[in-house]
């Protein structure tokens, strides 16, 4: 990336945040319930990998899956499509699914305006 100032001179290269999109998926199962937590950032660069990791938490015999996004900092349309597809898959498998989003901030905003709740239940934790 080559940032430039208004006069064409090189602008300072900001040093902030990770150099590459990073997200982490943790899966906890208890009896027939799975809690899948995603933290970090999800965009076009890592969405496919993150979706595969999430799907590893889905097994036959589950009655409910919770996808916890309260630790997520960024999501784009590629990440939102994971939620749409997950909702469809869980409905087909007759597994109750829900996505938990932060009370406010960019994740909730994106989930709301994309209409994710049409595909999977969206819950906001109490403050």
């Amino acid at each position, binding site marked *: *990336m080559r940032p430039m100032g208004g*006069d064409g001179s090189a602008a300072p290269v900001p040093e*902030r945040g990770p150099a590459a999109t990073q997200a982490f998926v943790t899966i906890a199962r208890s009896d027939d319930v799975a809690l899948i937590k995603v933290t970090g950032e999800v965009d076009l660069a890592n969405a496919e990998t993150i979706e595969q990791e999430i799907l590893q938490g889905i097994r036959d015999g589950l009655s409910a899956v919770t996808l916890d996004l309260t630790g997520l900092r*960024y999501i*784009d349309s*590629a990440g*939102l*499509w994971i939620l749409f597809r997950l909702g469809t898959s869980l409905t087909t498998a007759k597994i109750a699914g829900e996505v938990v989003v932060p009370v406010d901030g960019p994740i909730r*905003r994106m989930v709301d305006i994309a209409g994710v709740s049409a595909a999977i239940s969206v819950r906001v934790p109490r403050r």
Partner: protein
Amino acid sequence: MPPRSDRTEYVHLTLPADAAHLCGLRNAMNEYLSALPLTPHRRDEIVMAVGEAAANAVEHAYRDQQEPGIIDVTFWTESDALCVQVRDQGRWREPPSGPRPAGQGLGIALMRRLVDCVLIHYDHRGTDVLLRHPVHNPAPYCQPCPTPRAAGRPSGAHRN
């Protein structure tokens, strides 16, 4: 006058149309936008909208090329707004009609909800996405326009 590194009325970034560079673009945007009087909420919205525009270019503009092309991102402040242009030199692809395959069409819809005005222009040279977001006193060193602004707003999509 020597260039001031903290001036943000015009910044131009060029990056490869590769998803691996989207994170760096976000970091750069956050850094430069932090100099403007934007709430974190507004800054997030602009970063997300620009991210969608850039991701669209990464995913679609150069699909037929073996080597990824480039994306130019320029943002500047006007007396009452922040503007961002995302430009590629690839091909525009119309979203398919009927049921959409996963991942297609959502990005543009999100952009139109996140910022006040979205203009998309494409021709054989590539695609320009112009995002415009009202900002009060976008920069203390940016003087109001000396001439009256044209009445009305640019045509295009506006946030509902």
